[in-house]
């Protein structure tokens, strides 16, 4: 039971994917799409599992006060802050408009919102007496009336319905027109606009709604880019120490690396002109023929290995992915 059912599931899933390749018509391509969707959902939960494992490891480090446990606190705090901001605040880019800033009030008043009768600017939605106020006052007014001013919107939801002709017994696509009253606050949120008046409220809103994008843009990309660029230094140091032409194989490796490094920068052309060789073209030839031969061999080898392993998995011969009892 514990082994047989998973192997059966693997077999069925694998065969459906393969059959779809030869019979691309209904129902196989639909089942194939569903299967791939389910695959992605389960894979996403596998990632959740990985994150849980990370949390578990570091919380044990903190509770047992192992070496460098303080950094585990940093890890867990940043993980939780980022996850909360991402899941609850959304991952789209938001615009934060300060209702004490004249330029931003102008920007807000000119923003168009989708309403039931087309697009209207925020300014057009203000009552008559409010439109007569100065822009600064309008900003303060809007902020105080965020939950009161309403906007009527209509969402078109795709559904299906029975064909009106009783003789035709199939369904046709249709639209459900969902008319609803939204407060201005909700309508602006749909356009990814958040209003604030500075201070602590702004910081909290910024964290919850904009924290994810901000951290991604300035923290994640900086750290990731720098981590990878560290490799440039280590590669140079390793090349100095270990890249010696001890054997024929090592010499070939070195020469190929030389030609690629020199040929792919301007110095290749300059050096070539000095020596009398077209180094960039030699580099191109080396890339197109010997290097391609080697890479082709690796590519075909890996593919053959992958195909045979996939076949073994689908046929139930290979069971190692199920782990031990």
């Amino acid at each position, binding site marked *: 039971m514990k082994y047989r059912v998973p192997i059966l599931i693997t077999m069925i899933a694998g065969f459906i994917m393969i059959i779809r390749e030869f019979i691309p018509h209904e129902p196989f391509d639909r089942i194939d799409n569903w299967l791939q969707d389910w695959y992605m959902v389960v894979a996403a939960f596998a990632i959740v599992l990985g994150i849980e494992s990370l949390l578990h490891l570091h919380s044990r480090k903190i509770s047992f006060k192992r070496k460098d446990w303080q950094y585990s606190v940093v890890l867990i705090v940043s993980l939780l802050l980022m996850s909360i901001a991402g899941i609850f605040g959304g991952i789209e880019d938001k615009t934060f408009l300060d209702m004490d800033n004249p330029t931003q009030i102008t920007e807000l008043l000119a923003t168009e919102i989708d309403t039931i009768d087309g697009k209207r600017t925020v300014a057009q939605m203000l009552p008559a007496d409010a439109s007569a106020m100065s822009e600064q006052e309008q900003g303060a007014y809007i902020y105080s009336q965020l939950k009161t001013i309403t906007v009527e919107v209509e969402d078109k939801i*795709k559904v299906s319905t029975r064909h009106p002709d009783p003789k035709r017994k199939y369904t046709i696509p249709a639209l459900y027109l969902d008319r609803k009253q939204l407060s201005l606050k909700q309508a602006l949120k749909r356009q990814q606009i958040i209003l604030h008046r500075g201070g602590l409220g702004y910081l909290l809103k910024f964290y919850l709604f904009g924290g994810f994008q901000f951290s991604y843009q300035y923290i994640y990309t900086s750290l*990731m880019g720098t981590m990878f660029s560290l490799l440039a*230094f280590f590669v*140079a*140091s390793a090349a100095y*120490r270990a890249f010696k032409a001890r054997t024929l194989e090592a010499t070939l490796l070195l020469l190929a690396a030389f030609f690629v490094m020199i040929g792919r920068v*301007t110095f290749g052309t300059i050096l070539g002109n000095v020596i009398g060789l077209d180094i960039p073209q030699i580099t*191109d030839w080396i890339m197109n023929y010997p290097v391609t031969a080697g*890479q082709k061999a690796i590519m075909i080898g890996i593919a053959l290995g992958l195909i045979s392993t996939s076949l073994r998995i689908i046929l139930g011969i290979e069971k190692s992915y199920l782990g031990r009892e």
Partner: protein
Amino acid sequence: MNLLDRLIKLDRRIIFLLIFLAVGIPLIAPIGLPVEPSQPIESGYDFIEEMPPGSFVLVSYDYDPSARPELYPMGLAIIKHLMGRGIKVVTMALWPAGAKLAEEALNESVQYIKDTQGRELEYGRDYANLGFMAGNQIVIVSLGKSVSKTFPNDFYGTPIENINILNGMKNYSNIDLIVTISAGDPGVPYWVMYAGDAYDKPVIGGCTAVSAPQLYPYFANKQLVSLIGGLKGAAEYETLIKAPGKASKGMDSQSIAHLTIILLIIVGNITFFLDKQRLKRLKRRMK
């Protein structure tokens, strides 16, 4: 300790400093070394040059900001080239962050065309951004059946039916070229497998320098029209379209850094051989 021993035991921090200076100094004081286009990039340029105005090109942004230094200039140069030739560009993304990068590149290119050719390009008529769709290869396969079913709305939430340019782009049969700019998985191999080979569509692949050697067989096999690899590839394309940008500026640093590493390897090998000779002499003396 003589020079040879000092070189053998060289503190790696000196090497780090050398690399830092080799990359940093040209960024502050550019030399302006010329960039010579190579065959893999020229074939892509020539292909686009031969496309008639009004053709449809799908550009897929399959990377995130961590690969931006290499891939953003590349995508920008290609879109500038396409727009400059009056070719209709539709961008999409298989990586979540790609959609925003595509938007940035489209806006920059539109401004560039306005500044250089004086033409005003209109969203929806001349170009569009379909945004991100999760699904990796399912998306690629699904586009072959119907673009509108795969992307019911564009990046800004507008229904596809309301976008002019997409009325002419039903599925791959209406698309004349696929360009993919990718930093990994999903990326060039998937586009080659599920669109290029499956639907017989020309594909131009842009990739980071790390992936370029593995993708070379696709180019050598003509499964890819062109393979634009790394910052150098981007700089070469910028040179071909005569619009030098960030990639070309970075090439000075790239050249000097490469030269530094080559010199380090040569010095390393010279010290290795001299040390070997020294050991041999010592052994002979001991005998």
